[in-house]
């Protein structure tokens, strides 16, 4: 009986909780009905202005295709299209009536000239004209095997090979003295901070040029960056914990042996700690590889989009610039592992190099064949979040290795390394036209 009463009590209290939680929602929906309901004129303040965003312009054989979106507060009717502010008859698919955030494709028959700038204009029924210009018209790549393999080759040149070249610094870094090593480790942190800032600036640029205000692009960037940072931080901490538990199991078996067999072990690092140390650098290196992979994906997007959007000269320079720039990324991957003392196989290194590099190819495909500005900023923000998490891991790992973390962080090699890292990135980034 008592048990039943308890259960009933719990049930009623749960019901109560639900009701209490729902009451504000019910009141809120009542208010919305009141405000938006028929006959309510309180919200009819001002005139809603239409807004059309031209997200992408493609130059195809004898036609120009513009992908537009209604980013205004209400539905609009598209009335006319023009090229360089001159009316041209055009087709619009699926319909000239666009509901809020709906998309349409405007196809304008036009004999365009390669390399010449063009402006595409869209006029809505109230006479407002929206336009977007392209610096130099170039035939849009069509998704076929030839084009895909072309992008793949570019991706390999830009992403995979340079990162693998950078990995060749592994033996060099392994033989460095501790101070010089610290220099290179913080240099890595410097490189990464630069890449993170670069990704944020880049995505902010896309927001300014291609994303309508309706999408709150800048807030989206900040949100995704922070969420990525937190999720990766949580995951990597879990990973390290796992590795620690595993090494605990191993060492508990061999503990006695270790300590008894070598009396001088007090001066050495206990095996347990050593294993832990190996687990952490590896995890950091993997995180760096993933972070750089996302960053390189962004680079791939940039290259593909440059080809698609007709910035031809730009994409050639872009490719050379990224190739040089990305060599330093290999260095960033190997640095944390070099001094860990654990077995670092060549296979492991190559896998990490590939994780960091291959996304460039995927990025080039997506950028070249189905460029979407929103997807681009999402990737760049994820990359930025991942990179900042890696920087956090490196610095916390470096400081946890010493008895005086603060002093270690402010040592000469650290500051010098960080500064030089950023400077190198800035110098190589000058090779990439923006």
């Amino acid at each position, binding site marked *: 009986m008592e048990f039943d009463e308890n259960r009933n009590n719990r049930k009623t209290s749960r019901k109560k909780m639900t009701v209490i939680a729902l009451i504000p929602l019910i009141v809120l929906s009542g208010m919305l009905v009141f405000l938006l309901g028929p006959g309510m004129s309180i919200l009819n303040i001002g005139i809603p202005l239409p807004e059309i965003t031209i997200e992408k312009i493609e130059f195809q054989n004898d036609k120009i295709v513009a992908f537009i979106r209604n980013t205004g507060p209400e539905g609009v009717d598209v009335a006319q299209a023009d090229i360089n502010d001159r009316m041209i*008859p055009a*087709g619009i698919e699926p319909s000239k009536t666009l509901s809020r955030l709906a998309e349409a494709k405007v196809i304008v028959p036009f004999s365009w000239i390669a390399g010449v700038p063009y402006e595409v204009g869209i*006029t809505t029924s109230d006479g407002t004209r929206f336009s977007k210009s392209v610096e130099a018209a170039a035939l849009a790549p069509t998704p076929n095997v030839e084009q895909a393999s072309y992008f793949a080759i570019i991706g390999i040149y830009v992403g995979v090979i340079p990162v693998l070249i950078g990995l060749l610094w592994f033996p060099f870094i392994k033989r460095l003295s501790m101070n010089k090593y610290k220099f290179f480790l913080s240099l890595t942190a410097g490189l990464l901070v630069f890449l993170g800032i670069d990704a944020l600036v880049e995505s902010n640029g896309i927001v300014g040029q291609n994303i309508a205000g309706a999408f709150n692009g800048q807030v989206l960037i900040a949100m995704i960056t922070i969420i990525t940072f937190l999720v990766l931080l949580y995951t990597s901490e879990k990973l390290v914990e796992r590795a620690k538990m595993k090494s605990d199991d191993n060492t508990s078996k061999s503990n006695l042996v270790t300590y008894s067999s070598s009396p001088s072990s007090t001066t050495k690092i206990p095996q347990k700690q050593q294993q832990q140390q190996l687990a952490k650098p*590896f995890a950091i290196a993997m995180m760096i590889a993933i972070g750089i992979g996302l960053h390189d994906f962004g680079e791939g997007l940039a290259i593909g989009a440059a080809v698609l959007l007709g910035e031809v000269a730009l994409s050639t320079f872009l490719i050379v610039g990224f190739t040089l720039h990305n060599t330093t990324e290999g260095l960033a991957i190997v640095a944390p592992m070099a001094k860990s003392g654990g077995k670092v196989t060549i296979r492991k290194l190559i896998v990490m190099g590939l994780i960091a590099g291959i996304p460039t190819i995927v990025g080039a495909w997506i950028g070249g064949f189905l460029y979407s500005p929103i*997807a681009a900023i999402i990737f760049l923000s994820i990359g930025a979040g991942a990179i900042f998490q890696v920087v956090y891991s490196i610095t916390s790992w470096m400081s946890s290795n010493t008895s005086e973390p603060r002093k270690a962080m402010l040592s000469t090699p650290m500051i010098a390394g960080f500064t030089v890292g950023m400077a190198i990135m800035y110098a190589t980034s000058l090779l990439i036209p923006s």
Partner: protein
Amino acid sequence: MSRSKIILVSIFLTSILTITFVISFLSGISVIAQNNNAFSKEGEKTTVVTGGHGTGYNTIRTTGDVLDSINADERTDLTIDPMKYLREFNYGRVSTTDNGTTLRDFTIIAQDKNLEVSPGVFMDAWTFNGTIPGPTIRATEGDLVKIKFINNGSKPHTMHFHGIHQSQMDGVFEIIAPGGSFTYEFTAEPFGLFLYHCHMQPLEEHISKGLYGVYIVDPKTPRPPADEMVMMMNGYDNDFDGENNFYTVNGIPNYYMHHPIQIEKNNLIRVYLVNILEFDQINNFHLHANLFQFYRTGTSLTPTEYTDTVTFSQGERGILEFSYKYPGPYMFHAHKTEFAEKGWTGLFLVKEDQSEPDVTAFTKGERAVYPSEISNNTFTTQTKTKDSQSTIVSYGESSQGGS
């Protein structure tokens, strides 16, 4: 180690999959849009769209809607009717005063109106008698002209006539408030081609929103009989950026491209050409395959020039006289090509004689006949009721009388 490696790799893969999902979700719509052609082949109706104004230009096929103001008149609101305006002269209610002078009474009402000024494009306009341009007012030199002006608009307006009259009839200092009215009274002098427009400040706004019209004063000895028409060159600044988005003759961009003006071979054509174009410094008129006698401001019966192109600044005007030697379609347009390509373009269709079938029987939504299809003797389009009778207006013959 291998276990944590597996975890790491699987996390990496999961994140890649998540990203791919997000990407495909976000770009899903555009992928569909891009591949539209793939599933548009069967069953669906496709329309051919031609760039430019005629065959020979690039064409595309579309399953969607067509945005075409050059080849077809897709307007839903036909308040502005350039074909009606072209040959409509208003002589007023005619009476004779005690001393034998002809008195012409007109009523002009200013009103706000949302007009479709180009296919699909609507503008909040200010109008005289509901359309842009306002009605053409015509009198003979020496007539007494009385214009009762009623302001039904939301802003104060006036009517300022060009010509010779007293200060208080100049439409500058007597401001007519909304709901008010005023009667302008003056003698039509001298003969020539004039215009009228609102003179409220800001003048630029009152003119660019549509308050203007043509005012013709005929000489006492009439000009020779001719096929007469009015052409008012104007523009529309729909987005209020101080630049015109559309340029027209008689109110609708490209209208006479799909509704060619029909004229007869060897018949004398007289065009009363006025430029009211706001914002732009100049505007001009160019006639294809022909030259015209030009009477600047129409104040002389002797032509001042024999030319094919004439350039006006705002408020300037002149009378053009010409006839075509050969039948066929001929373009006329602003030789300022920007204006031409933004709508100030039209066609004369010269017919052998009046008995030829009518080619301008386009109803709404029908495709225009391209010039190449209207070669000399192949007027193929079906005959329908004429939307405007070609009337030859000559002085003294008009039903409204006057002498």
